[in-house]
């Protein structure tokens, strides 16, 4: 599954590069796009675990649960830095760096001696990703100022605890879409466009901090300002 997904993305990149050679970006678009934004990453369950002992045969045998835990990576504010290179009027490639400090909320339940407890642990989370952006030029509006786009790619996930100790690393595939709105198109400047961008992504994580090593899905929403130059 994972290998297949990666192959599709690579194919998209190649396709994008091919189109870029045949259709150079339009004047006034800017080849290099720099964006800084803020958003949110939705929380999700990262699984549970049980501390079990071996039960005495006289107690019925099997397992004896000392306590159970359930953990959730809570919704967090995320900062986003993007660097894009426009290959053509339609296609662009982007590199992104995302940072968030999600809280790991852990519930201890059923402790035979302590009952239920809960506590929080802060994580620092970094995602470095690469994306292909497809601008939907046919859907442009407001004199070309409003431009919808689709985006998809792969990233590397790194999660540290509050002592900067690596807790987990993993991969994160994303797919989504959004709009860019040009606020300013200076006619004769190395700055080609200044605008705002809003997007939603579906984020599918493999590995990372997870008690059950399962694939997890979350949603990210971002709003950013961008600057397109050259």
């Amino acid at each position, binding site marked *: 599954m994972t290998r297949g997904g990666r192959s599709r993305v690579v194919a998209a990149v190649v396709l994008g590069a091919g189109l870029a050679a045949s259709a150079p970006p339009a004047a006034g678009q800017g080849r290099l796009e720099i964006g800084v934004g803020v958003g949110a990453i939705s929380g999700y369950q990262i699984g549970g675990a049980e*501390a079990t002992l071996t039960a005495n045969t006289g107690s019925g045998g099997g397992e004896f649960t*000392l306590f159970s835990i359930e953990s959730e990576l809570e919704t967090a504010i995320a900062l986003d830095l993007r660097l894009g290179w426009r290959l053509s009027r339609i296609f662009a490639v982007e590199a992104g760096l995302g940072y968030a400090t999600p809280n790991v909320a852990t519930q201890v339940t059923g402790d035979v001696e302590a009952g239920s407890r809960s506590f929080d642990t802060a994580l620092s989370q970094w995602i470095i990703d690469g994306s292909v952006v497809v601008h939907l030029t046919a859907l442009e509006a407001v004199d070309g100022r409003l431009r919808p786009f689709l985006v998809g790619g792969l990233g590397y996930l790194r999660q540290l605890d509050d002592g900067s100790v690596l807790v987990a690393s993993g991969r994160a595939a994303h797919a989504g879409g959004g709009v860019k709105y040009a606020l300013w198109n200076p006619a004769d400047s190395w700055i080609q466009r200044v605008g705002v961008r809003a997007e939603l992504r579906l984020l599918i994580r493999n590995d990372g901090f997870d008690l059950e090593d399962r694939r997890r899905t979350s949603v990210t929403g971002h709003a950013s300002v961008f600057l397109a130059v050259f």
Partner: protein
Amino acid sequence: MVLAFVLAGASPLEAYLKLGFAQDPDQVLRWGGGPIRYFVGDRDLPGVSGEAFRQAVGRAFASWEAVPTATATFTEVGFTGLSPLSEDGVTTVGFEDVFDFDDRVLAVTSLLTRTGSGEIIEADIAFNAAVAWSTDGQSGFDVEAIALHEIGHLLGLGHSAIGETELRPTGGRRVIASGTAMFPIAFSSGSIEGRRLHADDRAGVSDLYPTPEFQQATGSISGRVQKGGASVVGAHVVAFNMQTETLVGNFSIGSEGRFVVAGLPPGPYLLRVEPLDDADPDSFFQDSDTVDVDFRVGFASQIVTVRAGADAVADLEVVSK
């Protein structure tokens, strides 16, 4: 040389007593080198032939030897008619008729150690011949399970407290569940649940006899246990690996109530601290008068991340009952 006894079996009342080690508490008891050579008593008891006993004991030794992160190895020399408790420079595992210990004790391990270095030079395991034994799990206490526990002592391990018990109305304690072969109270007669090693046992033997890979691949958690600013001695601290669901424990000791839980694979851990009230504190500490059992079970306030080859620090605060 010093002779010490570890009483570590169960009994009809399923309770243990322990004399403890007459050793410097900072001294680590372990063998100087392997393989550890041992003889097996040749006695037949009702329901357990000498050969069945030898095979059960051999399986227990093999379980310890199979721990991939420890270097302890054993060689069975053969049968012997000697008493297992004779101080003869020969390590012997066998049945003993005259038991000078509490009649509830199933088995005892005696260690002959070199004063100063703590090196074990002889270790004998005596099974109480007055107890009903079994090697097939049908009836009687399981030889292999008790041998597994006693061999842990033979290697230098003390008791672990990962287990739950309840008081019997008639006195003594009954084990409800255990998460280590080194829990001081055995499973019921007829049970073979005690035949396997747990993460706590593997961490313990690997800490005593580590392979180079073990030291590089594991880390530890250390800290202090305090109650209202005062040190707590004898608190049982258990590290729960949230991903592998394994438990490894140790105790807070010394005037500062410090603990170290070692041999932990890297990963996120939850620390649980509990009073030592599931067995007699004498089963764990020679000087049990300082053991504080007046506090509630608690947890560390955060997940603790263990790195390979590193120590993670986490202090624990507990409150009185």
